[in-house]
């Protein structure tokens, strides 16, 4: 079984948010519910940016706090939420150091509230005019439009990657054999700043990049051991404790 991981090359990333939009469309997220986000922050006199999906941590604190095992780690290394088990206690949102989780049943992050504009059918919280095919819906892995009162987060596009043929080292949008199994954000990224592959396979592109270009994990001191690695190169940097400005 693969252990999926992602590499994001910050020198290539242009902060265009194509990944965030692709994720929104692919996973039918509500406005503001950015499973994948690009954070902007000041550094020196410059505006910098920093793409941030769920880190699918090796030691995920969200999993260890969840009292019901609604949040759990799959054999392929991804961390997903079972919407049939989640009780909406939000402990996982407290415990995730990266702030990547969303509670369905709270104030809208962006007005107008799409849940009142496109009211749900009782089963789903809203009924958007566009949506991912219903056949893809998989509540045990937090894929689809969620019911009320549960927490959601990036699944690494579990509905895609879980269909990938066994033994592939990388899921690459340029390879016709793996294109359809590649996460939406990776597939869409115009400058190809994102790579997705098997961290357990020494021959994978992701492992090669991590080794050659000093792949670094965000907030590594917290011990969550993300499976998302950043390449900062010489012209960019990985923001420190948090990407908000200090002092002032």
């Amino acid at each position, binding site marked *: 079984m693969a252990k999926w991981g992602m590499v994001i090359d910050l020198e290539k990333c242009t902060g265009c948010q194509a990944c965030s939009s692709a994720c929104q469309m692919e996973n039918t997220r509500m406005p503001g519910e950015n499973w994948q986000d690009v954070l902007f922050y000041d550094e020196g006199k410059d505006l910098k940016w920093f793409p941030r999906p769920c880190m699918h941590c090796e030691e995920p604190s969200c999993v260890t*706090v969840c*009292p*019901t*095992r609604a949040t759990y780690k799959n054999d392929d290394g991804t961390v997903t939420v079972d919407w049939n088990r*989640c009780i909406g206690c939000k402990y996982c949102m407290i415990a*995730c150091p990266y702030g990547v989780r969303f*509670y369905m049943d*709270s104030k809208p992050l962006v007005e107008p509230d799409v849940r009142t504009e496109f009211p749900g059918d009782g089963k789903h919280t809203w009924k958007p005019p566009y949506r991912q095919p219903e056949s893809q819906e998989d509540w045990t892995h937090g894929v689809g439009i969620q019911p009320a009162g549960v927490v959601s987060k990036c699944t690494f596009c579990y509905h895609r990657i879980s269909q990938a043929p066994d033994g592939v080292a990388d899921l690459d949008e340029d390879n016709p054999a793996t294109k359809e199994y590649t996460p939406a954000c990776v597939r869409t990224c115009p400058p190809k700043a994102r790579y997705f592959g098997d961290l357990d396979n020494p021959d994978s592109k992701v492992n090669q990049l991590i080794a050659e270009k000093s792949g670094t994990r965000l907030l590594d001191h917290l011990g969550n051991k993300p499976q998302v690695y950043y390449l900062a190169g010489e012209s960019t940097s990985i923001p420190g404790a948090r990407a908000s400005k200090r002092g002032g």
Partner: protein
Amino acid sequence: MNTAVGSKATSGMLLPVTVIGLLVTIGYALSQVLSVGHASFATSSDGVSWGLPVVTYVFLSMTSTGLALVAALGSVFGNRAYYPIVKRCTWLSIATLVGGFTALALELGHPFRMLWAIPTGMQMQSPMFWMGVFYLIVLSLLALKFFKIHSGDWSGKLLGQASVVAEIAALGTLGAAFGMMAMRPAWYGTAIPVSFMLAAMAAGTAAVGFTIYLSHGMDQERMPTPLKGLMQDLFPKIFAATLFAYLTFFVFHNATGVWSNAEGLQVFEDYAGSAFFHLEWIGLVVALYLMANPGTHRQGNMQILAAVLALVALFIGRYEYIVGGQLVPLFKGTWVPELIQYTPSLTEWMVTGAGLFLALAIYAIGDRFLNLGDQPQG
């Protein structure tokens, strides 16, 4: 044996007042939660996840533990001077715990799913799992203990000892649920469960003091002699000692937070400038003064004032710790404010009211029908 003259009159009013309060608050909260959902709360995904209802839950369960531990001073450690309040403390401990659980249930996305999802999940790494286990044990033992006392059987030291251990385990785990969160620096700390214990003892003492007065027309003279003796002697001593212990923690906790430059602790400075902080420390200091000063510590009015001040200050303290620990945003971009703004919504206040009124209404029922002033014969 019954409580003294006059107690019926006050508790006679207490029950209808608390039931009306409960109906209004829970009615409003439920109607909002069922129609608008938790969008009627001020909590949100880019800010505070646990708001005022969680503060209420923690405050009430902490008070419940404090009450049970005060009761244990009599029933387990055999200090006969405490006997007049053992039954009352035990009942009030049940009442506050039920009030706390209710506030929590109104906060959860799927409160009923919890009943099967937690036992079948068996996630033993989660502090919340153990909190559930220990509080379930605590509630069962409290109910058993009350039932025994109510039927006139004051023996059962083992039961008392078991409940003390369970109480400490439950409250300690509740503290650890916050204290273990290293990613939330303003919460993190190995001594946090102990600080919860100190706060609990002060809150439990204040709560039993206040309700004793409620049940006796706010007047010491209406209390039976053994109870009056307790209020004149041991009560202020133990109250002052618990307040002093908690204040010591409070001073060093806040001084450390303000002094430190560490990322995430900026909230301490902000908080130290707020009006609530001043209300909190003044409340604690004045309550301690009133209970330590020989000129005031026996007076009924001063005891009532000290209890109210301490309860308000301890509630603010829970709010400050729980909400404050979430105000420094997690990993977000520059457009996110340095500190998140959070003001509880009306629905959240109503959830708080529902928890408090439910606890008081259950207490009033006990006071009216269950002879909470009972003592062992002979």
